[in-house]
């Protein structure tokens, strides 16, 4: 795997930069993450043409990550050689509200790979999902994917540099909004998933007793207006509680690991989240810990387990990026990946088994030992 990035001002300049850095290899696929400051249609077409013959896919971001650096207003790319990926198939979902969207995409994959998605060995195949970051349908997509296959799909929700207007995914020369792109990959090298978040449980719980799932809103926790119950749990006044949202979100605990649900805003005494909460769900109140230290430990631990890491795709929550920026830690975070071919982006949500927030979901490819 080889990575490249460009901070060029024009799309042509970006394309030349990437071609120059990624030339001379036998390409199977190109994955790229691009600032939303570029015209999406022109960018998709240019990058698609620049790497004609390879499967080219990507999305817009709220900030980019490349080996050793966290960037803004850039395009980062990872090239997968034919020695790394045996086969790859892309599938674009243009109607995210079609209840059969995943079934249809999976039928395409089954035809291409000649194997049922339900029977595919999750040790031999892996999926990537890049979804519109403003669609609010990622939970449904991930739920359906999990129903139909044991193959891991890891990914992120596309961003638009915190404009919250339109996000895009790219596939083979085209840009799509209100869409998702799925990639099913049969790698030639081993792979693994890292899901890391920097929180500990405060030992307090809140039960969602009234919700509006579609709007991702918890109206009541434990029979009280959500913000009142939340403020009680963290020992804050209702007025000051929103100031704690980033450092004290809530988590759906699976064993000791949280699937983080981040509050976004207060609405008429209820709390709107960045992902949905089912009615009846018990959530743990969390306290933030050190992102840089926790991430470093997660990477080092996986390196010890699998040996050399050949490449990482890091789907990194924008809220983590904002916290790193607030603490002046973006350089330290970037350096964790300095010696590992890495690309990633600041997402509007992360996907791994389900949809979550304030998490890094990483697809890790093994390197040569």
């Amino acid at each position, binding site marked *: 795997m080889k990575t490249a990035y460009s901070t060029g001002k024009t799309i042509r300049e970006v394309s030349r930069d990437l071609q120059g850095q990624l030339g001379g290899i036998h390409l199977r696929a190109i994955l790229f993450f691009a600032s939303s400051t570029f015209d999406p249609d022109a960018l998709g077409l240019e990058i698609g043409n620049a790497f004609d013959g390879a499967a080219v896919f990507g999305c817009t971001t709220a900030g980019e990550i490349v080996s050793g650096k966290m960037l803004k207003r850039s395009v980062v790319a990872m090239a997968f050689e034919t020695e790394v990926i045996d086969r790859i198939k892309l599938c674009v979902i243009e109607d995210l509200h079609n209840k059969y969207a995943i079934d249809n995409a999976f039928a395409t994959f089954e035809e291409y790979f000649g194997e049922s998605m*339900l029977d595919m060995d*999750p040790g031999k195949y892996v999926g990537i999902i890049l979804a519109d970051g403003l669609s609010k349908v990622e939970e449904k997509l991930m*739920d359906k994917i*999990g*129903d*139909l296959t*044991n193959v*891991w799909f890891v990914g992120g929700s596309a961003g638009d540099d915190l404009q919250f207007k339109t996000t895009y995914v790219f596939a083979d020369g085209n840009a799509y909004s209100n869409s998702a792109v799925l990639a099913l990959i049969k790698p030639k090298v081993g792979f693994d998933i890292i899901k890391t978040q920097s929180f500990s449980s405060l030992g307090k719980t809140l039960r969602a007793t009234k919700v509006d799932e579609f709007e991702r809103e918890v109206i009541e926790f434990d029979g009280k207006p959500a913000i009142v119950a939340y403020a009680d749990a963290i020992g804050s006044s209702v007025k000051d509680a929103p100031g704690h949202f980033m450092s004290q979100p809530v988590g*759906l605990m*699976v064993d000791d690991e949280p*699937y983080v649900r981040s509050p976004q805003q207060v609405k008429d005494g209820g709390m709107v989240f960045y992902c949905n909460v*089912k009615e*009846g*769900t*018990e959530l743990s109140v969390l306290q933030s810990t050190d992102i840089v230290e926790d991430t470093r430990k997660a990477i080092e631990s996986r390196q010890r387990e699998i040996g050399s890491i050949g490449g990482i795709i890091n789907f990194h929550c924008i809220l983590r990026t904002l916290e790193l920026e607030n603490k002046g830690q973006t350089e330290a975070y970037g350096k964790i990946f300095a010696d590992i071919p890495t690309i990633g982006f600041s997402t509007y949500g992360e996907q791994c*088994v*389900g949809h979550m927030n304030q998490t890094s979901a990483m697809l890790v490819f093994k390197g040569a030992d």
Partner: protein
Amino acid sequence: MAGKIRQLVDVIIAKRAKGNPVVAQAVKAKLVLKGIRSDNYSEGTPDDPAVIKKLEILAKELGVTL
């Protein structure tokens, strides 16, 4: 009667995981995300028809025959 919920949860996890412990853990997480926390149910848990019905629907969604 008791224990039916635990039994259904175990069958769903076992049939989807097919002996793969990593997949078993992922299925357990999927169930939590779908609203079923498997650790909350033991062989002594009373048979709640609403939870049993929910598990039957989830099994169908997951392609598991109970």
